[in-house]
């Protein structure tokens, strides 16, 4: 019997609330399949299964808030027979009883609502309690919310909705505060920075984009992300996790999954992962970044994207400050920051020029690496960005 537990989706998550089951008793579950949607303090997240099996029992009820590690469901392994089926001579649908018994009170206490519908309801000021769901098992769908919004009177529900959004923002602030406090308490940070000329990278980007249709153009951020991913291959001590077990120690990661800090319009930020960023061509990376930003802001991320980042990259972009020195997200051991790309005076070979320049910074865990290696990493990053054509592989 496989116990399907609520996974940790980052060090800042202690608990989650089940919003929706995406599978039913008797369904076959494959690796990577989304089986549930769980609300964290940051977002509604699609929870994937990393094991294969057949759903024997759904233990968690809709609306139930549970701690990380709580058993949410039981799955039968391939060839395994359900215990109750043995007792019934293998003829009865063994799980119907317990599953129904658990599902009934939960359904009565909390509505099943898709994340898109919940978000739309918040935006439109629609009270979900007043909607009759037309989806599977009475779930409230986006269409249900739209229909309800069309009949909504202008003002009465504005106050509670505003309060709800404020609560959510406050919850997220609290979560970020806890994670960042823990980071500063436990991780001895050091910081190094490097100004990187981007004339070659931006010229290459301009020439490349001139050949591309609008919807396939690349942003400078993609070049920066790819360069970070490739540079990390030579500096594995920056890519991985610090584990507390057995007196603590660093566990490097072979995979390079970049957590990309994405600010939310309502405040706060989430850093979901761009998986295997080192091995993807720029066009694919741009597509995945676009999709990731869109889904992050729509509140529709996968659990793997929330939990598998091996390092974080924060990019303040062209509206940001000159430089950023970030706080490491535990259990990661490093964070790379990029400030605003701007024209600055640049002295080289006795000459003064004006070039587009970005300040790259590294915040790293001194238990794992030293400033010297950190500085070399940034130099490697700078060198890679002088040959942008080599990044598109």
């Amino acid at each position, binding site marked *: 019997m496989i116990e399907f537990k609520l996974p940790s989706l980052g060090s800042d998550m202690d608990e989650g609330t089940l919003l929706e089951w995406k599978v039913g008793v008797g369904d076959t579950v494959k690796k990577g399949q989304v089986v549930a949607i769980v609300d964290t303090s940051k977002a509604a997240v699609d929870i994937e299964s990393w094991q294969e099996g057949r759903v024997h029992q759904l233990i968690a009820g809709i609306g139930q808030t549970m701690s990380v590690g709580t058993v949410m469901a039981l799955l039968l392994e391939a060839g395994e027979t359900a215990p109750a089926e043995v007792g019934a001579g293998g003829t009865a649908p063994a799980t119907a009883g317990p599953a129904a018994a658990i599902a009934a009170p939960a359904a009565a206490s909390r509505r099943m609502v898709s994340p898109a519908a919940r978000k739309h309801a918040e*935006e439109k000021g629609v009270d979900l309690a007043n909607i009759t769901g037309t989806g599977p098992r009475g779930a409230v769908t986006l269409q249900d919310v739209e229909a309800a919004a069309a009949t909504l009177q202008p003002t009465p529900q504005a106050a509670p909705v505003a309060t709800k959004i404020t609560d959510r923002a406050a919850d997220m602030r609290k979560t970020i505060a806890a994670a960042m406090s823990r980071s500063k308490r436990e991780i001895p940070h050091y910081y190094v920075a490097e100004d990187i000329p981007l004339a070659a990278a931006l010229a290459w980007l301009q020439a490349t984009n001139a050949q591309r249709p*609008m*919807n396939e153009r690349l942003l400078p951020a993609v070049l920066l992300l790819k360069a970070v991913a490739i540079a990390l291959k030579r500096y594995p001590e920056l890519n991985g996790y610090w584990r507390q077990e057995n007196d603590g120690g660093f566990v490097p990661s072979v995979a390079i999954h970049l957590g990309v800090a994405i600010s939310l*319009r309502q405040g706060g930020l989430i850093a979901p992962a761009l998986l295997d960023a080192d091995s993807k061509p720029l066009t694919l990376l741009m597509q995945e*970044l676009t999709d990731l930003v869109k889904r992050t802001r729509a509140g529709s991320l996968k659990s793997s994207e929330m939990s598998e980042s091996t390092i974080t990259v924060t990019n303040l*972009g*062209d*509206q940001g400050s000159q430089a950023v020195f970030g706080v490491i997200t535990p259990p990661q051991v490093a964070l790379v920051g990029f400030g605003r790309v701007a024209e600055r005076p640049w002295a080289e070979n006795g000459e003064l020029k004006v070039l587009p320049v970005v300040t790259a910074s590294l915040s790293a865990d001194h238990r794992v690496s030293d400033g010297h290696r950190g500085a070399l990493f940034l130099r490697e990053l700078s060198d890679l960005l002088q040959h942008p054509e080599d990044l598109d592989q």
Partner: protein
Amino acid sequence: MNETEIRTTALTTLLSIAPEVEADELRGDRPLRNQVDLDSMDWLNFLLGLHEKLKVDIPEADYARLITLDDVVAYLQKKLGDA
């Protein structure tokens, strides 16, 4: 398409990306990105949205000319007039 229709399209596109924006409070002659929190991905999506709605190609080399909402409207009007 006249100037008012183009401005309405531009605002609708902007609101689809930044729903918190109060369109009435936007100053057409002030830098748009000083008034609305748009990162580079938002800005790209804004221009892409205009491209899809108006069937106007906006070369990257022209991005630097699009600072204010008035710039955007005038640019699109000229492009549509030239088409």
